[in-house]
């Protein structure tokens, strides 16, 4: 795959289709791939990487990149393409300045999961079908690839690339996904248990803003949490309330726009399952207002800017099942 992407990048640069290519390169570690812009063939040859660790969703970078001189090529995995289309819908990306190469995807890897299976000091990971060969300082282990997928890939909602100029690999389908199972599990708990669960998780938040910075929906010119006039400006967390506030407001602001790309949880250094908040909104929206997938098309109204005359009342929250808090 990496070879095909590299060839495509070189081709697009050499035939002047684009002036830049947005892809991935190695960061501090081999599994720590970061987004990068390549302007020359040399850079591509030398630095361009695509591997099981190319999880980063590149769509958000196009907000800036598409406004610069010249056209930019971008590689989008299926879930990235949803984010891309959602941003297009919000007029955030200038489509004419972007050349989208859609790439099929069979799931990306989570270093945490590899480590969790006893692999310390990992020096290389090679893929061979469903098997991963993990080289460590202490020897080599073979793992099942499925056991090492990122959470979002383990419950992948769609292999369909919804926007592209060109495809590498096969176009996929929307999938039946059990991604809401964990949300449902939490819903089944008592309010006390849920409260304890979230306290436990959110109390670890260090307000590094990684979730915000990576999120394609969190792309405001100026975030309310940085804005003096918003009344909620807050750079560091001083109180449990502020931990809650930041994540509630963040989830609310992306509700109806979040494509469930899972980047927030992937980048969280404290491993807080932030995507569960967004998924809760998606699950509620699906149940209350009909199934809606942000970014799936260009014209459906977002559920929060839409309504029907006979929408459910907010009291549904109080009346439906579960233990009264």
């Amino acid at each position, binding site marked *: 795959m990496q070879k095909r992407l590299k060839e495509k990048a070189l081709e697009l640069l050499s035939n002047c289709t684009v002036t830049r290519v947005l892809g991935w390169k190695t960061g501090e570690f081999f599994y720590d791939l970061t987004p990068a812009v390549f302007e020359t063939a040399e850079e591509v040859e030398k630095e361009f990487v695509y591997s099981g660790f190319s999880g980063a969703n590149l769509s958000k970078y196009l907000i800036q990149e598409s406004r610069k001189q010249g056209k930019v090529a971008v590689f989008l995995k299926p879930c990235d393409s949803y984010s891309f289309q959602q941003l297009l819908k919000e007029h955030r990306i200038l489509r004419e300045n972007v050349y989208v190469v859609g790439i099929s995807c069979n799931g990306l890897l989570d270093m945490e999961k590899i480590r969790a299976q006893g692999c310390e000091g990992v020096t290389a990971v090679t893929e061979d079908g469903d098997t991963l060969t993990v080289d460590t300082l202490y020897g080599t282990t073979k793992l099942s690839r499925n056991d090492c997928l990122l959470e979002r890939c383990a419950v992948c909602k769609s292999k369909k690339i919804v926007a592209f100029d060109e495809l590498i690999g096969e176009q996929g389908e929307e999938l039946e996904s059990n991604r809401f199972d964990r949300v449902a599990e939490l819903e089944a708990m008592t309010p006390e248990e849920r409260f304890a669960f979230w306290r436990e998780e959110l109390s670890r938040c260090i307000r590094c803003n990684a979730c915000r910075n990576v999120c394609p929906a969190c792309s*405001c010119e100026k975030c309310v949490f940085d804005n003096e006039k918003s009344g909620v400006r807050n750079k560091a967390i001083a109180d449990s309330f502020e931990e809650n506030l930041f994540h509630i407001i963040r989830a609310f602001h992306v509700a109806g726009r979040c494509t469930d790309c899972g980047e927030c949880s992937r980048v969280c250094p404290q491993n807080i399952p932030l995507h569960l908040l967004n998924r809760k909104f998606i699950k509620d929206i699906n149940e209350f207002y009909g199934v809606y997938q942000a970014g799936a098309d260009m014209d459906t109204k977002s559920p929060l800017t839409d309504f029907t005359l006979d929408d459910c009342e907010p009291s549904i929250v109080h009346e439906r099942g579960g233990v009264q808090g």
Partner: protein
Amino acid sequence: MQRIGVFVCWCGSNIAATVDVEKVSQVLAQEPGVVFSTNYQYMCSQAGQEMIQESIHKYQLTGVVICSCSPRMHEATFRKTCEKAGLNAHMVEIANIREQCSWIHKDMATGTEKAVILGRAAIAKVHLNAPLTAGQSPVKKRALVIGGGIAGIQTALDIADAGFDVDIVEKQPTIGGKMTQIDKTFPTLDCAACILTPKMVDAAQHEKIHIYSYAEVEKVKGFVGNFQVTIKKKARYVDETKCTGCGLCTEKCPQKKVPNAFNLGLDNRRAIYIPFAQAVPKIATIDADYCTMLKSGKCGVCSKVCTAGAIDYKQTDTYIEEEYGAIVVATGFNPIKLDKYDEFAYSQSPDVVTSLEFERLMNAAGPTGGTLLRPSDGAHPHTIVFVQCVGSRCDDEKGKPYCSKICCMYTAKHAMLCREKYPDTDVYVFYIDVRTPGKNFDEFYRRAVEEYGVHYIKGMVGKVVPQDGKLKVQASDLLGGSQLHIEADMVVLAAAIEPDETARPLATMLTASMDTNDFFTEAHPKLRPVESPTAGIFLSGACQGPKDIPETVAQASAAAAKVIGLLCKDSLTCNPCTAQPDELMCNGCSSCEKVCPYGAITYADKEFRGPNRTTLLRRVAQVNPAVCQGCGACTVACPSGAMDLKGFSNQQIMAEVDAICR
């Protein structure tokens, strides 16, 4: 820092009885920014207002908090007071310590404590208030009247006489509406045509009135003072500028079997027609559903006989765009369909007719030339039964819950005319109640009973059985305590009336509200009866509720007066509390635009300074302050908080929250 004055009103004892006003003014005097605090018996009185004005000067107040009755009561009063003293009207906040405090609490300590908190919230808000100036939006000095019945005609004539241009849009080929089909009018028994047709001609000849007949409103955009309306002129396949209305084509057309809608299908007309002799405009129209030329391309008789060369089979619908300052709805009514009331055998016998059909049967221009004859066999009826309240006053889904209002009177008229013209007829009227509130109305009804010998029977008809050329009527006589069996020749049903079916989609276009019966809602049921709650939309005639002719005409003129009052102005003061985007923070994502009910938000590409001396072109929201009504839906839809609402800003509301929760 603002310099705030606090004024606590006693409202006589209304507030002072449960709120320690002295203490409230003392405590609030300690709040930051408060430079003056006092209390007074009646703040809204002349003396109270003067005290506020003096204090503004004396203490150089930049903000005023009045702790008094509801802002819905006196906010406007106090704003004016302060404005006169040179303070911006929007630097005034009211703390509602009467309706929401003194009147609902009995305990002085509780009331006082709450009043202080409400005062603090108002002070906190004033700290963040900024002077607001209302914008002005120009008024397009032209009115649109939708519906060309007696209501629409009267409204248009009155507006035009005041010197403003008026357009009438009428969906039928002629104006005149229901009144053209009526024979005589109660309680004076004037001939309807004799009093209506001159008005129709007046309207047509008035230099300020333009009539779009056979036309419908297609689209409405804009707002009070500045509506943009698209009118669809339906193809009538006759060139209006050429047709002389000679009527030759309507005699020569070979398609003779077209039910005549003007006579409610009681006789036939041709496929090309002029609805009636006094039609305005008197122009022929081809009924595309029946014209063989239009359907199969074979015929062309009308074209051949038309010396003016007015026939145009290729004509298509055309669209006209026009701007208006005000819109009057005059869409009128129709009798309901009677398919759910077939116990009266309406569908089974042609001799069971509606009251409107009966009008045509009595009318000299009607299918029987004005002689009352049974539709089935053309015989003179000798026994006629009138049934009242058919579909009115029903609480089931078959009928209407309201009283149709006009039926009692027109039935008395029908009964009277029958007895007068044909004294040998027996006339029965079955009624539930006889409702005759109106000038000379009850006298009229009594005349029908006393002078004309109409049999009024308190009771209802349960079943009509057509048999052997007769209508066997089974009815109750509640006062006589019997079940009656009458062999009638005709049965006349006073069908309930309902708003025209075009009213509902029109209301949606106008964003004017309607009640559950599809009547337009008035802005206030008593005090603003001819205005819709939507600014710039006015109501004339039966579209607002069942009405007889005198009432319709009165309301039509009232609506006209309101329209004239609006069109007299060169510009309108806008709501100053409008949404305002901070362009630096705007993402241009269109979320706000999608929730705006007024279409007040548009987008523009603007250049912004980027890093390293670059410029960035960004899409940012723009609010038209003339259109924005200040609901604030956009402010919450905006994820970045770029959109805020003047007068109810995020910071102001949060300051109030803080003060209350403190």
